[in-house]
């Protein structure tokens, strides 16, 4: 090959194929064999380990007995985004980690079985739940991500009039535009949204609360409000060169691949992704599939401190992503054309920290290194929707909404908050499955409050 631009190791002939779901899913025989291996434990530890408490032995029995509708219903009953979760949950830390077979043989592939049953429901166009009652109460949900969808479905099943306000073109939150499509395809998320819509939930997309409609107006119009606004974009690194051509926000970068036609603008490029959470990994594997020649994850600490799930880390390694540990970016440089041509990094070492469980990185004096890169992607976490939170005049701690851990009520009456918007330092983990559980929990609190109110009125 004599071309000056090196050929990407991923073929770009059919770029769409690169973004098709990577895990092929279980074949029918595999699923039934695996289902039959399940011991059908009593008081099974996997149920407790699932944040949404799916009755796992029951749904697996449904696969074994060819009762796939019952199986899918059992899953979706406890988890309104159970089809997404089957793909993105860190199962080895949750359900599968608790399987009693971990020691005796190998744990049941709960995630893959969950996907098998929900795939069946999607393929067979099942509507799993009906709305049975109608009350006169109305609830507004701000944000149509997993947390908001989960709350909406439960409230609709309680009979309330539910309206979701969603800033994006499509509901689904990060499931729709944040998690790469080769892990979570769009049609799965669309089906889950459809399941919620079919219960009579109104989803107003393209409406940004606080901009297109006033927060106070919403509080006046509805009997209760649930904030499910997630987190915002990736914050700035605070180094020189951040405004250069070729510097991206990881969330925007991934969103682009899920919402716009795929392009080859990364073909042959060298990419540095800064950060080592799930967002960094997703941005890195996306880059590989877009044809980047070399993709490096640059992280201040080490593998031990990174927040990406182990399965994500493995996945990235298999994609050929390189990891540069103990390196802190200090400057992004550009060539004459104004495009990025390098990333300066400072080598770090770890020291014991006073106020963090993780070790703290400090620079090793003197040394500095320059990585030859064409693209820099920021993936150092997400900032908060602070101004919107202020607009609702509710208490928060640096953008993390303060809630009663039992009821998920905020400091303001009739306003609740769930999902990533309440996820803060040391408080839980930002996961789709916990967002779904909080949605259910808030729905119960809201329903209880609305019912009590109506009793008082009567």
């Amino acid at each position: 090959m004599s071309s000056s631009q090196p050929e990407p190791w991923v073929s770009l002939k059919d770029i769409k194929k690169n973004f098709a779901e990577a895990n092929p899913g279980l074949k029918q025989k595999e699923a039934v064999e695996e289902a039959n291996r399940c011991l059908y434990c009593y008081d099974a530890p996997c149920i407790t380990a699932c944040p949404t408490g799916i009755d796992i032995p029951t749904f697996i029995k449904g696969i074994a007995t060819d009762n796939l509708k019952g199986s899918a219903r059992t899953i979706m009953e406890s988890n309104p985004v159970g089809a997404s979760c089957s793909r993105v949950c860190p199962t080895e830390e949750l359900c599968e980690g608790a399987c009693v077979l971990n020691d005796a043989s190998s744990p049941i592939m709960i995630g893959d079985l969950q996907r098998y049953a929900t795939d069946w429901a999607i393929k067979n166009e099942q509507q799993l739940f009906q709305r049975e009652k109608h009350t006169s109460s109305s609830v507004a949900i701000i944000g149509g991500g997993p947390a908001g969808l989960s709350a909406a479905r439960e409230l609709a099943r309680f009979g309330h009039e539910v309206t979701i306000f969603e800033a994006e073109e499509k509901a689904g939150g990060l499931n729709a535009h944040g998690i790469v499509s080769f892990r979570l395809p769009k049609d799965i998320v669309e089906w889950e949204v459809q399941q919620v819509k079919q219960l009579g939930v109104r989803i107003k997309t393209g409406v940004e609360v606080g901009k297109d409609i006033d927060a106070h107006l919403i509080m006046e119009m509805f009997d209760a409000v649930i904030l499910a606004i997630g987190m915002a974009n990736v914050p700035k690194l605070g180094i020189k060169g951040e405004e250069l051509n070729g510097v991206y926000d990881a969330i925007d970068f991934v969103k682009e691949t899920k919402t716009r036609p795929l392009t080859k603008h990364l073909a042959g490029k060298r990419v540095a992704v800064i950060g080592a959470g799930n967002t960094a990994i997703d941005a890195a594997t996306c880059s590989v599939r877009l044809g980047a020649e070399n993709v490096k994850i640059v992280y201040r600490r080490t593998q031990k401190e990174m927040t990406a799930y182990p399965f994500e880390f493995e996945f990235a390694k298999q994609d050929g992503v390189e990891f540069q540990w103990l390196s802190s970016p200090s400057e992004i440089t550009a060539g004459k054309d104004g495009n990025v041509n390098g990333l300066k990094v400072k080598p770090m070492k770890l020291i014991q920290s006073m106020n963090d469980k993780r070790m703290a990185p400090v620079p090793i004096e003197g040394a500095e290194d320059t990585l030859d890169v064409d693209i820099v992607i920021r993936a150092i976490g997400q900032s908060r929707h602070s101004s919107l939170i202020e607009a609702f005049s509710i208490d928060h701690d640096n953008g993390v909404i303060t809630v009663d851990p039992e009821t998920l009520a905020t400091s303001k009456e009739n306003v609740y908050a769930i999902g990533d918007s309440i996820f803060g330092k040391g408080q839980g983990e930002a996961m789709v499955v916990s967002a779904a559980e909080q949605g259910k929990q808030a729905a119960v609190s809201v329903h209880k409050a609305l019912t009590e109110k109506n009793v008082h009125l009567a």
Partner: protein
Amino acid sequence: MADLTTSLAGITSPNPFWLASAPPTNSGYQVQRAFEAGWGGAVWKTMGDPILNVSSRFASTTFNGQRVAGFNNIELITDRSLEANLREIEETKRKFPDRAIIGSIMVEPQQEKWHEIVKKVEAAGVDGLELNFGCPHGMAERGMGSASGQVPELVEKQTSWVKEAAQTPVIVKLTPNITDITFTAQAAVQGGADAVSMINTINSLAGVDLDTWNTIPNVAGKGAHGGYCGPAVKPIALNMVSESARHPEISVPISGMGGVSSWKEAVEFMLMGASNVQVCTAAMHHGFRIVEDMIDGLNNYLDEKQIYSVNQLIGQSVPKFSDWGELDLNYRVVARINNDACINCNKCHIACEDTSHQCIDMHKDDQGNDILQVREEDCVGCNLCSIVCPVDGAIDMVEAPRQTGDEPMTWNERQSLLSLMPAK
């Protein structure tokens, strides 16, 4: 290497594994392939007046993913001419003189018919005859097979007709579709049988298709009962062999079959009194090569136990098999859970709680770990917990020490003691 040579009423074979009379023994080609694979003997597919078969014919039970847990058929006896079968028997015997070839036969209950077929089949050089009084479908509707085999008088009469003509040992194959098999086994002995074999297949309907509501199997939308065999029937067959083996009037050797799938079942049948075993379903499921592990496993087992001849197994467990009334009422075992091996699936707890004697508690130990514990004083020693436990060694059934006054006593002893007590 132990000696695997066996003899059933004088018919010897290099090992105790015979193919039962069934599709695997339908032709010389098949039986020769089987002998090449190592089978010790073969009972030829039942011969008689050629019949017409239907299609389809077989069905099976799948249980929790395990295929052929049981096997069901509505096939009849051979559909090939007697001449062709006899020619191939002769050829096969010539090629494999050390293997046992048994001619299975079935005709209408008439003396001349039995005499005629016995002579023809023996002329082909068989080592013995097996009378098929067991086929439960089709042939029975014509007064043959199990229709004969269910009436002790007919078994005795027809056996004696065969014995009038036979030069070789006569094995009578019995049907399990009867309340007490020892009645027909005795009738066979009285008729002069040299051995009995059991069991033929058990009346069965394999299933119903949930979409078409047709029976399984079905023939143009109609079904009829068939015969059941394979792993699922072993306990039934083993009981029938054991009851016959311990019966004082059934003095002839037994060829055991019904669910023999490996060397292990063969050992069980022999310990319960069988002189050899016959196999059909396992061969149909896996092919003739399945005999390789049967022979090898049996050999290794005998070596391990330092037994020099497989014949030393025959009947060893028969004295241990008795009536319920002879069991010691004062003997007690209790369940004991080994928490190191236990994986906490809690299946024992829910089984005992819901369906036995509510004596397995779910606790936390000092470190806060979940543990299961048996309240031994309430345990009745039913075995259920250890049966449902998925991990070997996690639950032991241990002998409970006898209390004073708990001397061994059977129900029968108790009843006779009571009858000696003066009436009030």
